[in-house]
């Protein structure tokens, strides 16, 4: 068994009861802390040696991070709500059924009991050449994402293309959701797609000490939607391509995709636009590489298949 190797003296596991306490703890451990929500991603990355913060700050006991409610014309979902609760919650099912479906597509039932919506949108990017043990990465010669010099998956490019593998992020983005986070006294609310940088090494731009507190979904937009996930098995899978498409009552189409780029690929259009142009745009925007059990070519091809299907679904539902 891989017991923790960290010297006991440095290792900490902290359980703040409030956001302020959590922020204080973070401030006391600059550069060496990591927030943990459900931990389903962080703990596995730690097992592989990809995450080695000495101080783990568990946000699980902070009441302010929970709750699902309609607030100010939005559905507000606390960042620490589990995917399992979310996918069964009556308000989510009523206001954002696509999000429920996206949540249901994550991992497997056991995981969804622990994994949170906040954790899922912040889920670490993945790559077949990165999500490996320390020994493995040493053998392959360490890639950019673990302090190496080149991207192994592309055979030497100087950029990291680890994939965003969140299934809920594309659904949320297609639903025009905003993410809310706090840093000290400051509360920021911004469209979710803006937190993703597109750089696989540092895929998000939220300040390290900030805590994601909630997701806000606008209500009354009259979305019709389509959600698809490419995976080999029906369960127990990270995504190889997730597509989420909405059509709002104003005739605006929004597409968000995961699994084919370090960031969500977002395409916006009008319902009257040529679907093929839209597909071309989506494929062009996806920097998929061969770092997945499905090849790059296949995933790119599936973007087209999924989006054409989704286009028919969202427009048919409108009629």
């Amino acid at each position, binding site marked *: *068994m891989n017991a923790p190797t960290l010297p006991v003296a440095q290792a900490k*596991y902290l*359980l703040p009861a409030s956001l302020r306490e959590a922020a204080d703890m973070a401030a006391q451990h600059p550069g060496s802390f990591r927030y943990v929500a459900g931990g389903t991603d962080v703990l596995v990355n730690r097992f592989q040696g990809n995450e080695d913060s000495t101080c*783990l700050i568990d946000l699980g006991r902070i009441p302010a991070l929970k709750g699902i409610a309609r607030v100010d014309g939005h559905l507000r979902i606390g960042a620490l709500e589990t995917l399992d609760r979310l996918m069964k919650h009556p308000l989510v099912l009523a206001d954002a059924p696509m999000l429920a479906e996206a949540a249901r597509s994550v991992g497997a*039932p056991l995981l969804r009991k*622990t994994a949170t919506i906040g954790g899922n949108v912040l889920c670490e990017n993945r790559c077949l050449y990165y999500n490996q043990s320390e020994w493995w990465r040493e053998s392959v010669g360490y890639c950019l994402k673990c302090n190496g010099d080149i991207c*192994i998956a592309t055979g030497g490019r100087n950029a990291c293309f680890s994939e965003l593998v969140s299934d809920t992020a594309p659904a949320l983005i297609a639903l025009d959701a905003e993410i809310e986070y706090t840093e000290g006294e400051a509360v920021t609310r911004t469209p979710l797609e803006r937190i993703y940088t597109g750089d696989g090494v540092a895929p998000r731009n939220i300040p390290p000490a900030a805590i994601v507190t909630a997701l806000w979904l606008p209500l009354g937009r009259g979305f019709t939607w389509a959600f698809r996930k490419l995976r080999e098995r029906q*369960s127990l899978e*990270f995504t190889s391509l997730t597509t989420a498409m909405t059509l709002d009552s104003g005739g605006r189409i929004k597409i968000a995709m995961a699994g084919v780029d370090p960031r969500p690929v977002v395409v916006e259009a009008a319902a009257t636009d040529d679907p093929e142009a839209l597909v071309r745009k989506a494929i062009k925007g996806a920097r998929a590489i061969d770092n997945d059990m499905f090849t790059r070519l296949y995933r790119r091809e599936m973007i087209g298949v999924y989006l054409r299907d989704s286009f028919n679904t969202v427009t048919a539902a409108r009629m």
Partner: protein
Amino acid sequence: METIRLTVNDREYDLVVHPHETLAQVLRDRIQLTGTKLGCEQASCGACTVWVDGQVVQSCITPAMRVNGSRITTIEGIAPQGGGLHPLQEKFVEKGAIQCGYCTPGMIMTTLHYLEEHPNPTRDEIKEALSGNLCRCTGYKKIIDAVEAHVRNEPSAKQAGDEFKMVGHGRPYTEAGRKACGSAEYADDIKVKNALHCRFHRSTHAHARIKHVDIAAARALPGVRAVITGKELPVTFGVLPISEDETAMAVDKTRYIGEIVAAVAADTPAIAAQACALIQVEYEPLRAFFDMAESCEDVGTDEKIHSHGRFNNNIHKKAELRFGDQQEGLKRAVHTASAELEFQGINHGFTEPHAATAWWDENGLTIITATQVPHYLHRYLAKVLEVPMNRVRVVKPFVGGGFGGKSDPFPHEIIIAHLARKTGRPVSTRLNREEVFLTNHGRHPTRMSMHMGMDADGRFEVLDADVIIDGGAYGSFGVVTSYYNGVLLQAPYKIDNFGFRTRRVYTNKPQCGAMRGHGAVNSRFAVETLIDRLAEQAGMDPCDLRLRNFLDEYSMTVGQYRITSNGSTLALKSAMERSGWKDKHRKLPRGRGIGVGCGFFISGSALPIHWNEYPQSVVHLKVDLDGRVLVTSGASDIGQGSDTMLAMVVAEVLGLSLDNVQVVAADTLLTPIDLGSYSSRVTFMAGNAAKMAAERLREQVLDAVVRITGAERTELNLQRERVFTNDGKVDHSWHEAIEMATRKVGALNATGHYNSPKLGGDFKGAGAGLSPSYSFGSVIAEVEVNERTGHVRVLDLWGAHDAGKALNPLAVEGQLEGSWHMGLGQAMSEQMKYYEGLLVNANLVDYKIPTTMDTPEIHTEIIESMDPEGPFGAKECGEGALHPVIPAIANAIYDAIGVRITSLPMTPEVVLNAIKQQRKQHAEA
């Protein structure tokens, strides 16, 4: 360190833990609740599932500190206090949902929690609820059945008098209750006091000379007790005496990425791991060989992977046999079909990672290890450690699945034995899932070309196969695999002009070996899909074509296999009838299809690996005044139920209930030699040995009753634990009879053995695939194909397998369903993917074992052909069933969309590429 308080199963514990320890570690290592299993440590198998304050969690990723103050429930807390089982546990036992038992605790914890929230789920909902819990033994069918029965509150099927029903009556494994409660101990659950922990430093180079190993820093680390390198264990080993090409650690050079170069024994696993990271190895890289075709070529001035071998290439073994006249056969063939095929390597995927503990005392070495082959391990521990065999004792605890992946002696076993000797302390080790994949010994990646021809009447005239198999870095069972790829094509059909050539090559990758269905799975795929093509060409129904060509029972194959009982026809007709074949084949709407495959397999190899005259299996019985018959056998129960089988055979002969029979198995000190659980040999061989031993014991008991009561020998019955004559003049209990039989002589002993009859031809290679009996089976699959994505959904599997006589039908069904499920995995999703010799998907997320939701409804039928030499007519059922399922799925895909798939796994991508290829060809035409 931090102090936490946990209430576990209603008992309070104050514990000092490392701040980053997981709940699983605390439960298993600190409070010895080892019913919580670790299959992957990455939340991708579900074996570690427990409840925290009534919520289900995977304890391998749950920080212990998070649950401070919580109430924890583990599998040990489920059964009612004061004994007995929880009703769900009872249903798992009764329905045969428990085979190896390693996934069982997680399955039960997940299910019970789910049922609290959803008391009346549908079958599909149960499947979804369990879709994060991997099982490799059952194909999930009996697990879902058990949950459904529990939900329906189905009354127990037990009836009065059941205790005496043995052969032919389904019976849960004798130890199933223990497995359901989490108290069955597997290798890593057995904590030996004062034990050191061993970890391994593994090579980062595929093929490289080892210039220098610097172990100074590792050795200097406090808590490290020994560091060893390959030079300390230079003696070679290998499961086959003809290819002892492996050492416990790399000595002068490393042959694959992941090979063990050095090992550390330390006070804790963490210190051992830290020490391993401090070991520095200086390598001089050599040209590495990853491609099997390349390994067939002359290496020029480069260094071969192994220096032995006459030629300047990396070919390990060539096998070639030809029977009849293939040229003549081709001439007579009116219809011919051929294909080039490619198969990825796959891994056994047993849920329990390898683990072992070893120590030395005045009796020499004792090693407790998860093994299918205690006897071969016994031999090679003695050889490599250079001690006589009487200084080595191998003990097999409960084993969490094997499927061939625990049927070799392994480096880690030899290394910890050596470290235990060197340190004078017990030494334990447990591999993580990545190491399990690196250890491998799985199915060989394979390339082959296959040709078949058939005459105008639909008789197979000729078969020719040319096969290359990628053995990886070492030999393992590979010589046998080489032959099996060819010789196991001479049945179940009569083909008089038959030949093959196989080359097994070394490459710089983890070694391949034996895996369920050994050697013939891929070539069976080729034949069965070619038959489908021939049937189409001839305008025949593929089932009818097969029925026309099956070998007769009591016949001889062209390569001189003696076929005795043969249920091929019954099996195929059963599958046809139940699937509605005639109404579906070539009649389903486009996108939906049905396909068939058949197969056969050996019931144990007639020839031993080590050439000697020792029987293939020996069973001893002892009975004393307590009346309980002790059965000792070297056979390894790895979850397939062989202990229960032995008990049932003995109980059947002696008219006993299982209260009077106890099996002690697979302990090389206590039990007579059995060659092990591989080649589907145990029921046939150990079953026969047990039957002989029981018959001999019966004679002793009845002789004594005759002597003392004066009863007529021929009048005596031994049934229901009584010895009686029909006229009632003599009527004694089993205990009274034993009291009589032991007077003046003491405890009774009886021994039974099994020797295979002399079989086979007198040509070189004639021994390969010889077996005293063969099993036969068929599978029909129905699928749905999405032509835009290539996704294939298998909707139903109808399987039938001739097991001779099902001694324990519940266990036989379990073997069949597990085989079909494993075949489904190879068919659809499983593969070992490499990047320059480095295994890319060594975890249970990227290595894709089908979940409950990927597994179709399985419709099982056992065919009984009553083998003349099997115990009570029984023969193999644990491997052969796998063969037909993969081609059945491929043929169903063809029926659905008219596209032939020639590579495995048939991932959506593979299927879509085949569709496009065909469209392109049609467009060109």
